């Protein structure tokens, strides 16, 4: 997939994952007021194509999570605009599903009840939502743990439950905030592979925040490399070397090159 310019559609009628992109224009965001204000994001410009896997890569404090939350509508936009094919983003919505690093599962609900939650809110019919929940749980390989509570599951399992919960509402866009940061290395690589296969199957846009260069290069079609103080996108790098069919593994040589290149960039920023 290569980067495409997004053609904004004002008719939301024919919207679907194949046509929804994200357009961020002139986004500026401050925390605090007056003299104590910090500039979290400065004049961010970003276009993400439908179906693209886009990584936001940067050190901590560079505003990548803030940008994600703004796209998600969890923080109100101060300056600039964020648009999807469904219109301007002003509040949270089921078209932009989010997955957090700490899973944020409802601890008093079982895995199945968590997955059903969104569909209940959307008024999906009982039979259909039970069926969809069963499918999703099977997809993330949690069908045997459907009646367990989150406290009884490992980190990787909880994250899979969280992903299933978000997919249940069939969002156009998947926003992921360092979702594998709390997991150990082995689980993380398993989850990365599973995520790629989910992405390939569903064709959704994924906006993925991480500070791990390897992860970004492994997963992303395009990577926005961000820097801190103030937060902005330094460069956007394309990782459009082919993925081997059916497998997320990239060709080794180009992978290593890209990782080195970006690591150097990040290292440089960390020192400034």
């Amino acid at each position, binding site marked *: 997939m290569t980067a495409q310019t997004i053609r904004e559609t004002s008719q939301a009628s024919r919207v679907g994952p194949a046509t929804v992109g994200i357009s961020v224009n002139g986004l500026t965001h401050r925390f605090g007021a007056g003299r104590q204000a910090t500039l979290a994001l400065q004049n961010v410009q970003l276009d993400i194509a439908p179906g693209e896997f886009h990584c936001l890569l940067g050190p901590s404090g560079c505003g990548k999570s803030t940008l994600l*939350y703004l796209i*998600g509508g*969890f923080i109100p936009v101060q300056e600039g605009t964020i648009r999807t094919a469904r219109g301007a983003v002003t*509040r*949270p*919505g*089921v078209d*932009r*599903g*989010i997955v*957090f690093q*700490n899973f*944020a599962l*409802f*601890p*008093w*609900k079982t895995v199945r009840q968590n997955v059903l*939650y*969104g569909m209940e*809110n*959307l008024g999906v019919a009982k039979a259909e939502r039970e069926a969809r929940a069963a499918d999703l749980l099977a997809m993330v390989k949690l069908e045997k743990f459907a009646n367990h*509570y*989150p*406290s009884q599951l490992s980190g990787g399992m909880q994250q899979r439950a969280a992903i299933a*919960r*978000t997919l249940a*509402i069939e969002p156009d866009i998947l926003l992921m905030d360092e979702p594998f940061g709390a997991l150990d290395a082995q689980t993380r690589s398993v989850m990365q592979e599973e995520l790629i296969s989910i992405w390939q199957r569903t064709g959704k846009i994924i906006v993925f925040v991480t500070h791990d260069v390897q992860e970004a290069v492994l997963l992303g079609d395009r990577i926005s490399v961000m820097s801190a103080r103030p937060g902005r996108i330094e460069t956007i790098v394309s990782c459009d070397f082919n993925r081997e069919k059916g497998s997320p593994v990239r060709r080794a040589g180009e992978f290593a090159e890209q990782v080195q290149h970006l690591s150097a960039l990040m290292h440089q920023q960390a020192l400034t």
Partner: protein
Amino acid sequence: MSFPPSPVGRAMAHLFDYVPLAILALAWEAIVRGGLVSPSVLPPFSEVVAEFFRLAGNGVIFVHAAISLRRIVIGLALAVAFGVTAGLLMSAIRPVRLVLQPLLGLLYPLPKSALVPLLMLLLGLGDSPKILLIFIGCLLPVVTNTFNGARGVDEKLMWSAANLGASRLGLFVIRFNAALPDILTGARTGVAFAFILLINAELIFGQDGLGYLIASTGGLGAYPTMFAAVILVVMLGFAADRLFGFIENRMLAWRAP
């Protein structure tokens, strides 16, 4: 000491934890019978137990216990109902918080037992001043814990709920559920406070109830009865706390072990 993991073994292990109390009872009996302490000051344990069963037999102790417990239950129920509502409203609506928070902060250092004479003066010696006292005294821990619990809910949890299409009511339900552990802690503290305040009020100004029983038998010199009543009060307070803990664990079964 270790016990087998069977249900019987677990029960035995549980009982073993309370052996020190049995040791204490034995020591009590020993020092009186042994002449170290005069029985006019400390009736022997066996005599107190006998007296307890006598009172249970003629129903006296149950009558007083029922009177006391009834006051506690009513006062506590009112405190929980008002307190949880107030705490949740305070966490959700800013003006409510701005008004109530300083008032509660003011109430905090006031020793609630200091209200006993005033309430007796204004409302007499019956049920209502005692129930009101329990209500006021238990309100604070319930509101504080509810408020802090509701405010301390993980933001990401609320965002997830909003993301998944929750309505305003839905968000409120999520926040309530997430705050429930804290709410129950506040209520549990309230249980302990309720007992303390009730006994204080009945001791000082009582005409009936267990506190009154202790005070009157003390005044009359019927010490075995007095001791029996004191032990009953302690046991009731303990049992209430345990019961509440049991209910709490059932309601919060989803918690990590």
